[in-house]
């Protein structure tokens, strides 16, 4: 019997992931052993410290280009950049999640198992602090995302997908207010997510079948094998195309691309707003990081076959996101459809057949993440006695009541609309330019046209805030505590700076746009 060959493991390169997962496990222990009144502080500090430590390791290892742990993980430019992006955005999201001054006791319910709308539930909504289990859950999710963007074979990618999805399902269900809506959202997200995972897994199986018989290689689902198989596998191409289709469905579901976007508005609306922000920013980064890797590394040889199909998906996504945003009456749903449309623009960058497309997509992800977190931070502040006032009619005349926050929100909306001197403009340039160079003009035309449609709902909110008279029901903006202020300011300043001096980040993405194979 042969001796078992243990794969070599580069612990330094894996450190960010290990830190996050370790911190999550530690967080579970904290739940068990630390007294209740200290838990919030300990958990928040632990999570933030872990993010900072992981970020430090990402920065220290910025020059790593290697494949480790038996080919399961690739640490290269895109991995490190996207991990860094996820960690920075996750830190902002943690600041929002940890705020307990805007909503007394935090945005989360104290005991999720209590029947919603019961007398006991009302009591706990009034008096008790939110559960602190959200921190280990968030930390687990971040860890899963870090693996997801680094995964170098389809099975690792699937595991990572589940690792970051399951905590998100739970987080969605933990809203302190409107608990039924929150639980419904979590349920929907879980069912549809499981459904999409099944597609993904079925796709992996078909691809595995396709790689069998590739000259000189055993069958497998690591990207190098898949890449080789696309070029010279004797198996039927039906396996390849079927597998590619099912695989992309699983990923496009997470990225919220049409027609797999249907969960997005309901979940974004029902989930606690900081969690929505976390999903809109970090899940987006993770999903598009995986899409970039799968299509630029594994299926690179079949580019001319998948581009038209995914191009149609991109156009459909932009169109549905933009058109449906027009008639939304709830600010969180509006931002959800805007996030769907943005997924369409990001797909344009993914489909650009050059490394500028990769760097442009990465720039877009970071810029959008900062803006969307800032937007949801403002949403948490506009509230009345019943919690957040998310119906748009309640935002009428907000500019008179709270000019500063209305101004900030206006700025973010202008960034979403792609007005120059904001990061939104630069990021659209960054994805549309490479697509034009790569001969995908039709995608760019669709992108520009839908951007015009999409500007309407944004400007409608701006007009509503500034030009309408404030009504009796216009809520005031709560003055945020330090954590939310910090997250909001980081987001706004990043949106401005990336619009005015995008050079450094663009250079960084350009330098990081090379995958290892």
């Amino acid at each position, binding site marked *: 019997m042969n001796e078992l060959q243990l794969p070599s493991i580069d612990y330094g390169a894996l450190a960010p992931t290990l830190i996050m997962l370790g911190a999550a496990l530690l967080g579970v222990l904290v739940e068990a052993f630390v007294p209740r009144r200290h838990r919030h502080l300990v958990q928040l500090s632990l999570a933030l410290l872990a993010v900072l430590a992981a970020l430090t390791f990402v920065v220290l290892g910025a020059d790593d280009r290697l494949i480790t742990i038996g080919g399961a993980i690739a640490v290269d430019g895109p991995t490190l950049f996207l991990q860094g992006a996820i960690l920075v955005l996750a830190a902002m999201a943690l600041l929002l999640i940890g705020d307990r001054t805007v909503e007394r006791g935090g945005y989360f319910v104290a005991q999720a198992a209590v029947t919603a709308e019961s007398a006991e539930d009302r009591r706990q909504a009034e008096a008790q602090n939110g559960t602190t289990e959200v921190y280990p859950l968030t930390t687990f999710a971040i860890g899963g995302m870090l693996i997801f963007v680094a995964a170098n074979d389809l099975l690792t990618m699937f595991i990572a997908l589940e690792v970051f999805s399951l905590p998100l399902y739970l987080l969605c269900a933990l809203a302190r207010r409107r608990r039924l809506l929150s639980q419904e959202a979590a349920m929907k997200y879980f069912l*549809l997510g499981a459904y*999409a995972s099944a597609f993904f897994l079925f796709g992996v199986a078909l691809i595995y079948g396709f790689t069998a018989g590739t000259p000189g290689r055993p069958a497998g689902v690591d990207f190098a094998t898949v890449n080789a198989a696309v070029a010279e596998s004797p198996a039927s191409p039906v396996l390849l*195309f*079927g597998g590619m289709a099912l695989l992309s469905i699983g990923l496009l579901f997470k990225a919220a691309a049409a027609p*797999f976007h249907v969960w997005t508005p309901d979940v974004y609306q029902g989930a606690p707003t900081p969690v929505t922000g976390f999903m809109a920013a970090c899940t987006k980064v993770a999903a598009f990081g995986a899409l970039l890797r799968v299509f630029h590394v594994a299926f690179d040889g079949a580019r001319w076959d998948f581009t038209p*199909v995914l191009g149609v998906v991109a156009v459909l996504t932009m169109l549905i996101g933009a058109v*449906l945003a*027009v*008639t939304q009456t709830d600010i969180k749903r509006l931002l959800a459809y805007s996030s769907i449309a943005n997924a369409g623009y990001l797909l344009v960058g993914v489909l650009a057949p050059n490394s500028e497309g990769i760097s442009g997509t990465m720039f877009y992800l970071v810029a959008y993440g900062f803006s969307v977190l800032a937007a949801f931070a403002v949403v948490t502040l506009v509230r009345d006695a019943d919690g957040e006032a998310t119906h748009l009619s309640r935002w009428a005349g907000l500019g008179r009541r709270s000019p500063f926050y209305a101004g900030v929100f206006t700025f973010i909306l202008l960034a979403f609309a792609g007005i120059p001197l904001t990061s939104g403009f630069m990021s659209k340039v960054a994805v549309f330019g490479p697509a034009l160079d790569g001969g995908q003009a039709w995608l760019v035309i669709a992108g520009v046209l839908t951007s015009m449609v999409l500007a309407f709902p944004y400007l409608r909110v701006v007009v509503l805030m500034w030009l309408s008279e404030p009504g009796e029901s216009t809520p005031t903006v709560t003055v945020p505590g330090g954590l939310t202020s910090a997250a909001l300011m980081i987001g706004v300043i990043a949106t401005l700076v990336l619009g005015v001096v995008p050079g450094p980040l663009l250079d960084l993405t350009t330098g990081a746009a090379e995958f290892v194979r």
Partner: protein
Amino acid sequence: MVHILANAPAEPTGTVTYATADGLLGGVWLLVAIPLLSAAVLLLLGRRADRWGHWLGVAAIGAAFVLGLTYFLQLRGLENKSVELSLWDFITVGDLRVDFGLLFDPLAGVFVLLITGVGFLIHLYAVEYMAHDAGRRRFFAYFNLFVAAMLLLVLGNNYVMLYFGWEGVGLASYLLISFWSDRPSAATAGKKAFLMNRVGDAGLAIGIFIMFATLGTTQYDEVFTGVGGLTATTVLVLGLLLLLGAAGKSGQFPLQAWLPDAMEGPTPVSALIHAATMVTAGVYLIARSNPIFSANTTLQLVVVSVGALTLLIGCVIGAAKDDIKRVLAWSTVSQIGYMFLGVGLGGAAYALAIVHLLAHGFFKANMFLGAGSVMHGMKDQVDIRRFGGLSKYMKITWITFMMGWLAIIGMFPFSGFFSKEPIIVAAFEREDWTAWLFGGAALLGAGLTAFYMTRLFVLTFHGPKRWTEDIEHPHESPALMTIPLVLLAIGSVGAGFLLSTSVPDWLEATAGLGAQEEPHEAVLSHAVITALSLLITVAGAGLAWFLFRAGTATAPQPAGILVTAARRNLYTDAVNEAIFEKPGIFLTRALVYLDNRGVDGLVNGLAAGVGGGSGRLRRLQTGFVRSYATSILAGALLVVAAFLAVEAGWLA
């Protein structure tokens, strides 16, 4: 510089270079910065500065004058009398490099002294004149802003800096004309000035674009060095556009109509901006751009024609007006016509035009302030038919105004004689029959000027009293107003002789202005022209004295065709209305109609389509997981089918 020399084609004006400013002259930027800072302080502090703000404004201009004088004296010691100070790169986009730089040379130097010197006196005068106005601090802020912009205009070392100052003075002028914006006439006059200036400014802007497109630069030295390499047509177009800009700012034909209306502003504004300095910016532009204008004879002919035509228009209309400030305004239009005539003649006449400009700055400011003093004593009456006999009541105003009057009509030995008469002589020095045309026009203008200015003077200060009932005893203005009058009157007497003997030599160091040509033989001898012009002047003045010594009717009288036409500004307003305003209004209406029906219809239709589609699509979002799962499944089937179709080659 080596690079430019290597590429420079052979041209007549020679290569233009400037020395770098160092030592004391390195602080030239302070000239612009001090008034600008003062304006900012006055505007930002608001009411807190009401008590002392006007003195800050006066002090800023005084400091600028002292500094300007110091730099001026410093400049005299230098060899080529020109220094350039590059502060920072203003605009660097692609090939466009614009320097935020200043050029202090003899031409800029005399303008700096005029602007700060006369400006200081008028600021001083305004302290008293505006004493009872609640907006005095704001007035001084705008006044300081104007001086800063005007200094930037004359000190810039490239056309973009000039344009910067050009727009700055335009802004200040607009703000000050409509300073009493609660009067509809002032608001309308401000708007009129703004719009007509826009026409000229657009010309200047396009001219600068052409410079950049053909020469790749807007720096004075590089433009003047490169202009010899351009085709005649390019130079003509460029020059005409610059001329359009100059005509707009200086109230020359066909953009003269705004200047008389601009008298709605406070009188110190009329004196400083619309008589002494800003309106001469057009003359400055042409004098500064002399290598461009000298490079094309057609261009020079156009400039001369504009000057000659405008000077006659100004005289004729000025003779028919009854508002003291409007008469002075039309005389300004007419005198700037003389300056345009001078700069258009080219060669040595550039310097003559500048001399006349400086002399005019003194005597016209003097007369405007005098008019303000009269109005001050007569309860803001401006109609000269309701004055008369004021010489007994306002001794100082009377004497000083007399100095200005004698200066403007060109009587020996007052300053107008030394500055205007050489231009008339130069007009007679052309080669062909145009010598008679332009010389004759200049001579006729001198006679008409003598007539209407004497009419103004006699009707105001002599003859029987024709005052309105509410005035019993007109009073002389306080010392703060009369001291500037006296100083400016001294300037009106002496400046002409001093300037005409020193300035032409001094200006020789300015790029191009020194390029003296051999003068042509004049069609009449110098002595004959001098005698003729004096004779005509005396005849014009004598006629006016004879007609108006016994006063005039206090209401408008029926008049012949010419006088009626002159009262209506020679129908130029009517022409503007018929040619530009009416078609413009029609075009606007047509576009609005098209926009409402066509564009809006299309856009609204599209918007309604999107909204309707959105409303329908929304219904697909039912909220049921089962329908979501179905739509995902349908999507999945479509995607798989599409991939398989690709595989089967159906989509190829």
